């Protein structure tokens, strides 16, 4: 797969169907998360591309119709919020006869630019107040969960409110079912995604938003089966939901064709499915992963190589075959993960604008050398499979990705004051490009209901590199939340 550095470049390709242009995919951003020792937040982050249409809407028709009906009563709330309210209202009868709990939070979130203002002017990467309401109802083997956000964005967005999650669970003897919008996380890595193919919000990561906003829900049916010999998790999603990439209005992303204003996104019409099989193998947590769907972040093509007037973003077809292992080694926990990314729209590797098929490998080791201090080290590699074809097709003048790309990450977390103060730092270094990302954070729980965090996102590297292109987007962020 091509590295993020080339993602910023528009690449021209002569195909039998005519000229078209695409960006390559990006190398994984290896990013930071908040972390608590007993809330040891570790996950992985997948390749992304730095541009994508922002008008993600709920595609589900009935939700859409409901939203339309409610809209007059929810002026300014946004369609997604109305949909969330609909979802809750439709299931209210169930909730009424079940054991229910209502909870949520009120939150302020600010991120200041420290180097330069946004491309569209403001000095903030993020500036909003947000309320989340969560309804959790259960009755026998059934459970309903609905989690919706109302947000007031001060930087001009009107559609930040959304249904974060909304699903119905049924739990049988050795099987269960979940249907609706749900967050699904696969794999083992800490902000390096190998087998976690599900949607993320990369903008949230860059803009200093709290942890849970780094994952987006998938609208899917998930079937779990738990016979004695292994556990199975089958996910089927009728509609593809992409990852959210940073808004070019807020982040100074390299744009190879700034003069082309006409841009559209071609979202896949088909669905996607995935299967995870897992069990204990001699004291190790072992898992196999299969996925068929699409790259979660878009590639792009233009209508003409010489005189482009329109750019189309699209999501190349993808199949994934992966595995992971996790277990105790010495004093710590060793995590190993591997996956083969089969690029279905570029089987020969000669179409350099679609990500090349590749193998991804991850080795991670986590240890707690002294009380309340945790260290996590990771090595991550990507190997491009059809490298000669890629090189042969790559036009002169474009930066060349290496066949093998290496990234190392380090996370240090120290808990203090009876684990109410957490100091953490995450750093990622790409050995091929020298790009770096550093995220220090201090988080303090003022009371059991109020916590605040201050942190920074610091990027450096080559101007076209995976983090270097964001070096003018350094920011310091504040989060303050009251939970009820």
């Amino acid at each position, binding site marked *: 797969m091509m590295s993020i550095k080339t993602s910023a470049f528009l690449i021209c390709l002569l195909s039998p169907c005519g000229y078209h242009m695409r960006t390559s995919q990006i190398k994984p951003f290896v990013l930071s998360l908040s972390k608590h020792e007993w809330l040891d937040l570790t996950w992985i982050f997948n390749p992304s591309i730095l541009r994508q249409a922002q008008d993600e809407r709920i595609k589900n028709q009935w939700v859409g119709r409901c939203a339309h009906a409610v809209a007059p009563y929810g002026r300014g709330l946004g369609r997604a919020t109305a949909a969330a309210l609909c979802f809750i209202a439709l299931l209210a009868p169930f909730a009424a006869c079940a054991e229910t709990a209502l909870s949520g939070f009120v939150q302020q979130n600010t991120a200041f630019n420290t180097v330069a203002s946004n491309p569209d002017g403001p000095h903030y990467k993020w500036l909003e107040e947000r309320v989340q309401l969560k309804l959790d109802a259960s009755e026998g083997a059934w459970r309903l969960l609905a989690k919706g956000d109302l947000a007031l964005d001060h930087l001009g967005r009107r559609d930040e409110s959304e249904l974060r999650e909304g699903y119905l669970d049924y739990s049988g003897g050795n099987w269960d079912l979940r249907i609706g919008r749900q967050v699904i996380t696969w794999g083992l890595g800490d902000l390096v995604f190998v087998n976690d193919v599900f949607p993320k919000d990369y903008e949230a990561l860059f803009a200093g938003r709290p942890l849970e906003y780094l994952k987006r829900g998938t609208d899917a049916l998930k079937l779990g089966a738990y016979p004695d010999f292994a556990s199975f998790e089958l996910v089927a999603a009728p509609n593809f939901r992409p990852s959210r990439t940073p808004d070019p209005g807020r982040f100074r992303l390299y744009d190879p064709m700034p003069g082309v204003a006409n841009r559209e996104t071609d979202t896949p019409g088909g669905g996607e499915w995935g299967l995870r099989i897992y069990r204990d193998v001699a004291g190790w947590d072992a898992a196999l992963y299969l996925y068929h769907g699409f790259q979660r972040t878009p590639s792009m093509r233009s209508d003409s190589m010489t005189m482009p007037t329109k750019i189309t973003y699209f999501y190349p077809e993808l199949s994934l075959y992966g595995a992971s292992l996790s277990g105790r080694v010495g004093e710590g926990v060793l995590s190993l993960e591997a996956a083969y990314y089969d690029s279905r729209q570029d089987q020969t590797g000669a179409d350099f604008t679609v990500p090349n098929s590749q193998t991804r490998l991850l080795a991670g080791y986590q240890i707690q050398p002294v009380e309340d201090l945790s260290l996590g080290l990771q090595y991550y590699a990507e190997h491009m499979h059809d490298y000669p074809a890629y090189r042969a097709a790559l036009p002169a003048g474009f930066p060349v990705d290496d066949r093998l790309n290496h990234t190392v990450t380090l996370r240090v977390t120290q*808990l203090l004051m*009876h684990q109410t103060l957490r100091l953490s730092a995450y750093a990622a270094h790409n050995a091929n490009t020298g790009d770096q990302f550093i995220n220090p954070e201090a988080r303090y729980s003022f009371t059991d209901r109020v916590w605040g965090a201050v942190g920074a996102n610091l990027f450096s590297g080559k101007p076209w590199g995976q983090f270097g292109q964001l070096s003018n987007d350094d920011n310091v962020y504040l989060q303050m939340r009251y939970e009820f």
Partner: protein
Amino acid sequence: MKRWWIRIIVALLPLVLASQAWAFTGEEVMRKSQAAFLYPGKDFKARVVMKLINKDGQERVREMTMLRKNTGDAGGDQKYFMYFFQPADVKEMAFMIHKYPARDDDRWMFIPAINMVKRIAAQDKRSSFVGSDFTYEDVSGRDIEDDTHALEREEKVGSRDCYVVKSTPKGADADFGSKTTWVDKANFLPLKEEQSDKKGARYKQFSADEVTNVKSIPTVVKRTMKNLQTGHRTEVAYLKTDYDLGIEDSLFSERFLRQPPRKWVE
């Protein structure tokens, strides 16, 4: 002749009985104490409310359901499941521990914010349990073989007769230099424990504040651990305590870590 033998036996009987009372070594007392304190029943459930109180009296509350299942005899393997209700930012978080007496535990954690199950490093047995004055070992037990145990004397704690056992770590892994435990002679529950740091200074003090019978099993339902050096203390109440509920082995799995059954965690 026969009467002569009987007289001898009768005369020696009190001595035999008395020596039996002294027959326990420090290690045996601690082994029995561990069985009574951490292993009773085939399984166990409690709603645990921990109050973390600083020297100025400010409180923080940690509330969870704790489930335990023994997979062997007392002193053998155990499985723990903990599901959090408070504080708000860890609500629905769950921990699973597979505890082995002779080697490091296996631990997993479910992080609801990102719906992820993660195995976590477990060598930090002496580290604080959720920020409290209790360590993981205080909650789920310390291996008897990790310390040498000397029965020092007998002494009353309140109205209860106790064995007093001094335990000294064999290795350097402990955060304490030694600890002295007052073990109830009748039910072998630890009623008091005093820890000294490695310099010999008074460090932490445990007390069993309330003992009740649950299904005829004497159970410490209120306990306190106080750090004598900082003035910080943790008061713990075990509510809705119960034994032998028939907790399935399958509960201790990734499936239920992600979606704990209401009947077990509520």
